[in-house]
């Protein structure tokens, strides 16, 4: 990594990486116009985009700053609720808030404004919780943030807040990913964008995080991760850097929560459990703690494996006349957890370690050059 510190200009590897990402986007756009919109591919891409953003935001905190936070589900919950509360059309409010006479909020914000607000709300809560919690050390911090997520979950289910949060009932009827499709005058979809737009939102946010990580601020964060005391001695202000990193991470977790709301089409506080945080943590670990590329790849792999590729494990399968034993509901998750344990125990660096896509391309280029000179 030292090699990269003085790199100012954009080299060919970065350009190639950007081109790869661009090609992927174009491929998704084309695929979306050709393939039927019910294809599993799109479900995976939508959910994967959401999880990628949340995983990268968690990586910013846990992997790059060394703040071992387990509050991700809480921040996602805040994001999802803020998005839901402010985007349900006024006409539908009486229907959604049927037990709270139409609810308190009686206006609707545009989707992107609501998403921004979702992020800001999550960041604000992160600021509040950061005041006592960020002074703690590794595992105490983990358990305190976990506890915070549980508190938030209870708070949003509180009956007295019902006029705003709809109590323990679900929020629904807000704009979802499908509303990004452009429809003609007859109501028929003319251009499918329901997969591309979430990928774009997630891509823009992750891009912002990458820029942040490569800035002076990002390097200060890495210094804190590697050695707090040394970083402090070099003039990095620990408290403010940690707080800002925590808030930024939560901001993107909030945006991710809003995206999850759009993906699920409904929001209910009780689904944002610690299990969700664990899932995202495991994604980060599989991808490699401290690698944005790794988090993205593993999010899509994780979602694809759990929603799509391993689905067959949940049903009875016949090979000829032989019924494969063990296959029934839930087996997929068992296989999945065993894979995860293998990664955790034997491939501790995950898919990417701390490398990024440009690093890998640079490695290839160097190998090619080395081969040519011989």
């Amino acid at each position: 990594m030292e090699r990269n510190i003085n790199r100012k200009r954009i080299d060919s590897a970065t350009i190639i990486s950007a081109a790869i990402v661009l090609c992927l986007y174009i491929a998704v756009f084309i695929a979306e116009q050709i393939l039927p919109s019910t294809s599993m591919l799109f479900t995976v891409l939508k959910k994967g985009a959401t999880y990628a953003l949340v995983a990268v935001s968690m990586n910013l905190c846990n992997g790059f700053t060394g703040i071992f936070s387990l509050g991700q589900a809480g921040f996602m919950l805040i994001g999802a609720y803020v998005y839901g509360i402010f985007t349900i059309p006024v006409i539908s409010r009486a229907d959604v808030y049927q037990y709270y006479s139409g609810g308190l909020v009686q206006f609707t914000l545009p989707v992107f404004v609501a998403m921004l607000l979702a992020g800001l709300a999550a960041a604000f809560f992160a600021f509040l919780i950061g005041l006592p919690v960020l002074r703690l050390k590794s595992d105490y911090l983990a358990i305190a943030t976990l506890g915070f997520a549980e508190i938030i979950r209870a708070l949003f289910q509180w009956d007295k807040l019902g006029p705003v949060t709809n109590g323990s009932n679900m929020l629904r009827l807000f704009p979802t990913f499908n509303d990004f499709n452009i429809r003609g005058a007859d109501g028929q979809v003319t251009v499918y964008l329901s997969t591309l737009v979430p990928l774009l939102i997630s891509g823009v946010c992750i891009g912002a995080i990458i820029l942040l990580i490569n800035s002076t601020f990002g390097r200060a964060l890495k210094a804190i991760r590697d050695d707090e005391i040394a970083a402090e001695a070099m003039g990095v202000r620990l408290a403010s850097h940690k707080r800002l990193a925590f808030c930024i991470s939560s901001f993107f977790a909030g945006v991710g929560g809003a995206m999850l709301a759009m993906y699920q089409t409904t929001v209910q506080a009780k689904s944002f459990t610690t299990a969700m945080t664990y899932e995202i943590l495991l994604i980060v670990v599989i991808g490699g703690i401290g690698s944005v590329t790794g988090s993205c790849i593993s999010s899509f792999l994780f979602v694809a494996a759990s929603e799509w590729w391993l689905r067959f494990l949940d049903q009875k399968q016949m090979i000829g006349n032989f019924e494969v034993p063990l296959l029934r509901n839930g087996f997929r998750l068992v296989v999945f957890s065993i894979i995860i344990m293998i990664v955790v125990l034997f491939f501790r660096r995950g898919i990417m370690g701390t490398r990024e896509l440009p690093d890998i391309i640079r490695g290839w280029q160097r190998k090619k050059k080395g081969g040519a000179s011989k």
Partner: protein
Amino acid sequence: MWNTVFPYILSGISVGGQYALIAIGYTMVYGILRLINFAHGDVFMVSGIIMVYMAASGAPLWLCIPLVLILTALIGFVIERVAYKPLRTAPRMSAMISAIGVSYTLQNLVLYITGGLNQIYPTIPWISDSVTLFGATTKVVTVVTPILTLILVVALVLLINHTKIGMAMRAVSRDFETSQLMGIKINSVISTTFVIGTFLAGVASLLYFTNYTTVIQTSGAMPGLKAFVAAVFGGIGSIPGAVIGAFIIGIAENIIKGLDIILFKAGIIPGPMGLATFSDAFTFALLIIILAVKPTGLFGEKTTDKV
């Protein structure tokens, strides 16, 4: 007034005793390995599931109970050997992630075996009977739990203070490397710690599920987290601290469950406020407060970091 509050305090003491037995497992493991064993709550749940299946197989209860406890302790032993031992030299975060992985695995395994349905816990005679105590009707288990907890804790403290293995445990928790140099077989000490911890979790599961009667793959998560909070509250690494913390949390949680009714009957609030929603949240609020004010808990040792 007393008649309204007393049942809640009673069930609080009972739940507190069950949390205490789980919390000891957390606090002992943390004391020695500096690892939050996130899987501990799930071992507690698995113990309940084993009991369900064993009773369903028709084995008599006097055989089931000791067998369940032995199997639970064995699971603790295996988990340590498979998931934590290889990571002993790795950064602390790796071991914690491994613990989360084990928790995920156990939950999914139970989901697969049970099909994700609530399992009815077998009725253990005598402790499932009802008794009336100072005008409050409850199960015998409520009364048995605190007594059994105290007996087990005293036995454990005696074990730690007066036996060779106990001395080894204390030495390992004080200094890992030095105790290794002094000829202590740390592997067996750590295994013993896990066996004791999970054994107590097994006892807790007998008592807890007799009270709640159903087991599902997620039923270990909340009691586990709360027991951990209790361990932190009392000062992690300290067994008496964990027990006291567990009782405080158990009682506080149950009083909050009935706070609506208590306050309403006392005439403080005009109508129900739905405060019972916060019975879980309160535990965690308490955790954040105690960590902010006294990070080492009530009885924790003060540590100083050397640069």
